[in-house]
């Protein structure tokens, strides 16, 4: 799933590990989501959006 994670991280000057700690997932998960190799579950998507104080739609792009 396409997303703005990398750009959002850059805005906050966070590493993947920083975001992983804040979203309570592994760094590997953040990396896989950024590279669009893995689609997160709804709870994880909500947590990531909440970390950036955004909605899910503002972080993840619906391609359908």
């Amino acid at each position, binding site marked *: 799933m396409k997303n703005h994670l990398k750009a959002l991280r850059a805005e906050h000057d966070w590493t993947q590990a920083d975001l992983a700690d804040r979203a309570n*997932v592994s760094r*590997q998960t953040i990396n*896989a989501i950024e590279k669009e*190799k893995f689609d997160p579950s709804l709870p994880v998507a909500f947590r990531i959006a909440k970390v950036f104080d955004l909605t899910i739609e503002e972080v993840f792009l619906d391609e359908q």
Partner: protein
Amino acid sequence: MQEHNESVDQRAFKNVVPIAIWTLAWVATLALARFGPDLWDSQPVASWVAIAANVGVGIGVMVAHAGFLRRVDELQRKILVDAMAVALGVGLVGGFAYAAADSAGLFVFDANIAFFSALMAVVYAVATIVGTLRYR
């Protein structure tokens, strides 16, 4: 609620410890059930107790593994479950293929059940490594 003062990766490592302890206990009870009859002169009651202990600890291994899967990060869970599917498939396909070949008299040696356990363990480990590299 999960604590945030340690990373998910650190927690995953900690979560492995109970599985390692249960697995070691299972191996010990398996050895007792397998070699114990030599020690207690093949008394059936003692052998049944050893087998019951092995099955009981084996159930503990399964419960510990299920708990581990519930606690790990969702990508790690996907990698592990995918690896289990491959290991189970190889075990089933390999096991039935061996049984068919054995029935057809194609083998001159008898395979031990431990061989398939070892095969599935190796396949599980390799599939886990491949999955980890795939999502790295």
